[in-house]
């Protein structure tokens, strides 16, 4: 969370610097911009959804409780192969009462991807 706030602040300030070039302080801030775009996408899903997904992922992969799983965690980095990913997606379907199509199931690489997809599918259900 701290990273998100930090990045968005940096982004705001870098924009400000760009808008006021006369101040002559357009220094290193710009480096953060590409990351910000990614972080902003990440914020699409609610934190509680992300948290719930993290828990399910941990359960499915039988990871110890102290393993750090965050939105940016890649399933592959947590030691999951494609079969484990299928299990995770099935577990998520059960938990959230949704149905994930196979094509979209294969594009899920991170916890965040999963959380975003869940929110999207839930929205569709509600509509």
């Amino acid at each position, binding site marked *: 969370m701290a990273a998100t706030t930090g990045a968005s602040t940096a982004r705001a300030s870098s924009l400000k610097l760009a808008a006021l070039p006369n101040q002559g302080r357009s220094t290193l801030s710009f480096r953060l911009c590409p990351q910000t775009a990614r972080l902003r996408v990440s914020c699409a899903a609610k934190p509680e959804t992300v948290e719930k997904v993290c828990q399910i992922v941990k359960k499915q992969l039988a990871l110890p409780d102290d393993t750090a799983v965050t939105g940016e965690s890649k399933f592959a980095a947590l030691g999951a192969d*494609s*079969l484990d990913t*299928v299990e995770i997606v*099935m577990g998520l379907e*059960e938990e959230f009462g949704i149905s994930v199509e*196979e094509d979209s199931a*294969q*594009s899920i690489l991170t916890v965040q991807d999963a959380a975003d*997809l869940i929110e999207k599918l839930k929205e569709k259900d509600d509509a």
Partner: protein
Amino acid sequence: MGASSGPRLSGIQKQVLSLYREFLRVARSKSGEDHRQIESIVSAEFHRNSNEIDRKNFIYIEYLLRRGKKQLEQLKSPDIVGLSSLNVGSSQPKKT
């Protein structure tokens, strides 16, 4: 979504994953204890084969796919309530 699409999977890999998904779905339709039993056997089998079989051994993988599909059809029948697996090669049976 497009930017984060996963590793390109071959057709046969997709078939295997799809079969695995089907198995897990069918397992859900069975009752509590049997559900877990089926899941653990199916999961162990897929993982074991994924580690043991050479990824280029298409003939064998295709054979396993066909066999899996048949087993899946059997499992789908409501008369089938559980699944068991006996490991003949080693000394201890895997599941009763």
